[in-house]
């Protein structure tokens, strides 16, 4: 269960202000979906929420912890970011990649649990194959198997439907609905409102560095 709150969060790349006064709140079981044009700052906002970038302006609290004053390790233990890259090693097989990920997060899964996670994403039969030979969709599925192992309280997803086939999209939505039902929180960036429609969510538009709830008029920033 995660409670995420940002207040007036800013971010700049050099002189260019990418995020300007971002206010976002998502509670347990909440799903916020960020829509916006390419370069509008969706991925930057997700990276910032994942503590990949240092917070330079505004406040960000996760589960009651002030991210500016709490160690990065403590914050990162509560979240996972699945972005455009899957962070998998091609020379390791699917099982070894999951084992590697588990050791990095301090998880101690049994071999059976690892195999179950791989089977759950439809990759049984590929557990001992090097990931180098996987298609983009298979890599995405294996990356999602890591989510099932870690079950973080906050899940940050950047274009999660890309590279997935129709069955993969249906499976992902079912997994996310179960995750939200269990009290997990999702912040997702997407260009695909049709696929997101299957999820209970609150849509936002990121434009000009500001975040707007899509259900209200644009003059009012999200809060």
């Amino acid at each position, binding site marked *: 269960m995660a409670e995420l709150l940002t207040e007036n969060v800013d971010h700049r790349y050099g002189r260019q202000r990418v995020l300007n006064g971002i206010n976002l709140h998502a509670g347990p079981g909440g799903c916020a979906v960020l829509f916006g044009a390419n370069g509008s700052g969706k991925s930057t906002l997700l990276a910032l929420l994942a503590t990949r970038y240092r917070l330079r302006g505004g406040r960000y609290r996760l589960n009651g912890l002030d991210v500016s004053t709490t160690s990065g390790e403590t914050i990162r233990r509560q979240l996972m970011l699945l972005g455009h890259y899957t962070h998998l090693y091609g020379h390791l097989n699917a099982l070894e990649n999951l084992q590697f990920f588990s050791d990095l997060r*301090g*998880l101690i899964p049994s071999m059976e649990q690892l195999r179950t996670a791989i089977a759950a994403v439809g990759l049984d039969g590929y557990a001992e194959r090097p990931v180098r030979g996987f298609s983009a969709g298979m890599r995405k599925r294996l990356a999602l198997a890591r989510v099932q192992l870690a079950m973080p309280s906050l899940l940050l997803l950047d274009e999660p439907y890309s590279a997935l086939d129709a069955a993969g999209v249906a499976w992902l939505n079912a997994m996310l609905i179960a995750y939200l039902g269990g009290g997990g929180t999702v912040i997702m960036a997407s260009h695909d409102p049709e696929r997101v429609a299957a999820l209970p969510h609150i849509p936002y538009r990121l434009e000009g560095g500001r975040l707007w709830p899509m259900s209200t008029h644009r003059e009012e920033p999200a809060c």
Partner: protein
Amino acid sequence: MADVNAQGGTGLLRAAYRIAWKDVVGDFRRRSTLAAMLFFAIAVLVVFQAAFEPDRQEATRLLPGLLWTTVLFTTLVGLGRVFQAEEEDNAFEGLLLSPLPRGVLYLGKWGGNLALTLLVEILLLPCMLVLFNVDAWGQLHQVFGVLLLGTLGLTGLGVLLAALTQAARARETLLALLLLPLVVPLLIAGVQATGNILTGGSDNGPWLQLLVTFDVVYLAMAPWGFGWLVEE
């Protein structure tokens, strides 16, 4: 599933070991860094041998310098590739997103590079004694000891500088430019200590102390420096 929420010392060590394991296993499977380091080391030895054609006495005098020159450049070959595996699928970003202290990531990367470098040295030293016809088999373990001390500092600082230069266009040149001046004292101590062992010199203590001092300084500073380098 057991979840070690706040990773204790064992969990952190397991994570560092897993990163090092991933690098070593990856290198054996791709046959990349180890093969390049070995090929380079053997090529350097053959060129030195052909160029100097030393007799046994001269070879004993030249060997410490040749050994450490070969180790230095071979290490540079390995360091140039230490973050190569992390470029695939932006895996380095994945490491940075893990809930591990940055120092543990450094320890893992350093451990992998150290294991590969030591493996090359274990193969290199006997080759060198055979090729230069130097009868120092009785002192082999002592020379290995000195090599180990020198390699700890050399790779310890090298992995930090490899992280610093990984995004640069001419990263291998930049790495060499930064590393070489900083490891000169370490190399001098290594050459002198090795020379003393081979020639039966009396007091090796000060050189070994110098090696240990540099190891401690580099290895104490590097995990902290790594954390500072990778934060954005």
